[in-house]
């Protein structure tokens, strides 16, 4: 029978000064959980790990294999051996959690963190009948908005893999934001609670997520916390929480991409951090190299039609007013001042090969910086 070596993290705080690894030879069949149970039954009854349902429902057997977070009952041994090409498989407890013993971790901290985001329904009396004899009906199309999030089983895979948890103590954790977002799109939940959740989400690190997408990768249930965090950020800005750098960055993207088809990295430091110096410094540095810096991106061919598509989608989603039209007009003016023509003419002329003459030359000039 094919076998593999598991190097398992061992630590008993009552006996061990430091953790150590113990090797076990296990059959390559079934799942990683089967292998751990094999050890427990046949090789070493002292090994501790949590597991219960064996079928991806209870979420208690999450751990790390060669540094990557896995749910043991969902991970075939064969797949692990193939991925790691016969290398030993190092089994560790989840990251960012205190080890109680061997692979068993203390999950109290992330649970407490989650609770700060009000991950429960605060009923709106205008929607939810107070009379217990009446039901509060949810229609299938409403459920669509949070059908993935409700599958979170608190396995803490995402909490372990999270880049923001790693470097920011207060960060609530991917799953906590998903669980909060689930009520942000529930019609039965009262508006004041939704507002509070956003406030608490912001103080809990909403803008500190790095969008690495590891939470999407490790979630055994297909929840997409990084995307829910994006949704929450959008809600935060719409509810008027616009003072954070991240909110200003979002505004920059929404306005500049509409106006020119591109972001403008020369203006980002200024529009986000009020750092005008960054732009001036860069412009100067380029001028010293003999390169003229144009402060706007080359307008995309077909820009006016692109704008129509952009605005049409935003209108349909009832978000057209998220565009700051006075900002867009300012950008248009920058473009026409530089190229001595209005934006429509520029977009048309710029792409006529050979006819644009100097205009094309100008557009080949540089724009955009990248320093905060």
């Amino acid at each position, binding site marked *: 029978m094919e076998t593999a070596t598991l190097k398992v993290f061992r630590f008993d705080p009552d006996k061990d000064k430091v953790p150590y690894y113990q090797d076990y030879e296990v059959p390559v069949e079934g799942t990683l959980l089967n292998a751990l149970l094999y050890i427990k039954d046949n090789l070493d009854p002292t090994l501790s790990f949590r597991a219960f349902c064996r079928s991806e429902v209870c979420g208690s057997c999450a751990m790390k294999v060669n540094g990557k977070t896995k749910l043991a009952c969902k991970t075939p041994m064969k797949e692990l051996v193939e991925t790691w090409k016969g290398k030993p498989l190092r089994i560790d407890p989840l990251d960012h959690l205190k080890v109680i013993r061997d692979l068993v971790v203390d999950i109290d901290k992330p649970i407490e963190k989650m609770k700060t985001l009000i991950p429960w329904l605060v009923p709106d009396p205008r929607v939810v009948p107070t009379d217990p004899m009446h039901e509060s009906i949810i229609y299938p199309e409403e459920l669509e908005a949070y059908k993935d999030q409700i599958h979170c089983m608190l396995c803490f895979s995402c909490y372990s893999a999270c880049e923001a948890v790693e470097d920011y103590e207060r960060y609530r954790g991917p799953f906590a934001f998903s669980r909060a977002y689930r009520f942000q799109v529930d019609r039965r939940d009262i508006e004041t609670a939704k507002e509070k959740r956003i406030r608490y989400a912001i103080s809990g690190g909403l803008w*500190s997520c*790095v969008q690495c997408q590891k939470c*999407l990768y490790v979630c055994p249930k297909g929840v997409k916390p990084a995307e829910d965090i*994006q949704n929450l950020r959008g809600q935060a800005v719409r509810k008027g929480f616009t003072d954070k750098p991240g909110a200003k960055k979002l505004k920059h*993207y929404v306005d500049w991409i509409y106006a020119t088809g591109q972001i403008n990295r020369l203006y980002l430091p200024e529009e986000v951090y009020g750092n005008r110096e960054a732009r001036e410094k860069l412009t100067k540095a380029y001028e010293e190299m003999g390169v003229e*810096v144009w402060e706007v991106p080359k307008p995309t061919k077909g820009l006016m039609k*692109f704008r129509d598509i952009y605005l049409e989608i935003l209108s349909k*989603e009832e978000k057209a007013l998220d565009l700051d039209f006075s900002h867009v007009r300012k950008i248009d003016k920058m473009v026409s001042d530089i190229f001595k023509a209005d934006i429509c003419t520029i977009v048309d002329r710029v*792409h006529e090969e050979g006819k644009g003459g100097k205009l094309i030359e100008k557009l080949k000039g540089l724009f955009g910086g990248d320093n905060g």
Partner: protein
Amino acid sequence: MVKVGFYQGCCFQGQDAHMFETMKKTFKAIDVELVLLEETTCCGGNTIDEENRKLSYAINARNIALAEAKGLDMLISCNTCYMVIAKAKRAMDKNKKLREEINNLLKEEGLEYRGTNRIYHLLDFFRDVVGYDRIRKAVKRPLKGWKVAAYYGCHVLYPRETAVDNSDNPSSLQEILKALGAKVIDEYENKDACCGYHSFYTDKNMTLKKLDKILGSVREAGADIIATPCPLCFKSFDIYQTNMENPPGVPSSFLPELMAYAFGISKEESGLSHHLIKVEKD
């Protein structure tokens, strides 16, 4: 000669136009013609998704449709552009209603998303279309004695649905670096940590902490330089590193630059000599 549509995003124009020049030279050496998809726009940088996901899908369905209209597959270098556009493609392919709605809007420009082309990132393009052998054969100046730390960046490995390599144990970048003759350093402590590029304008402190960790462990592993296929990770390493209180001065490179250099193109022309953190190695 293979022809492929090249999506530039924000990283290969304006201030960074030279990066596209490097790309063209690198690809010419391995017999690939890059056709610039000029009418494309910014992918939204995974930030437009915060405003509205459908808007992100529409922008990128348009970007893909522009390549389709030319009958070309699409090549993307930036990890984030790749992921955002690949996510849009998945949504358009899976959701018929969304596809109809967005195609209805694209009609105005005479465009249609059909889902007929492939989207490649540099890594799978080198592996599946070019082949490591052809890269090896194009090398004129092997990177002998270069100890290069392989750094993938997140958005080519996560999420699973759009990953271009085995997310847990990827190999394409190491294979390419080996083909260039370099000594690959692929075991260093923070090889899988995020480069912090995207939090620079949302939580700058986070970026600096990430850089500190990655660059520290790269140095500890004894690498001369980092190589990444993602222009954003590269910028984080080269440019944002200078924002650190005590920049460790670890040099980095955008993969096509290293390739250009190994293919015999001068250090100056490859772009390697224009970094803020000097690449001393020859």
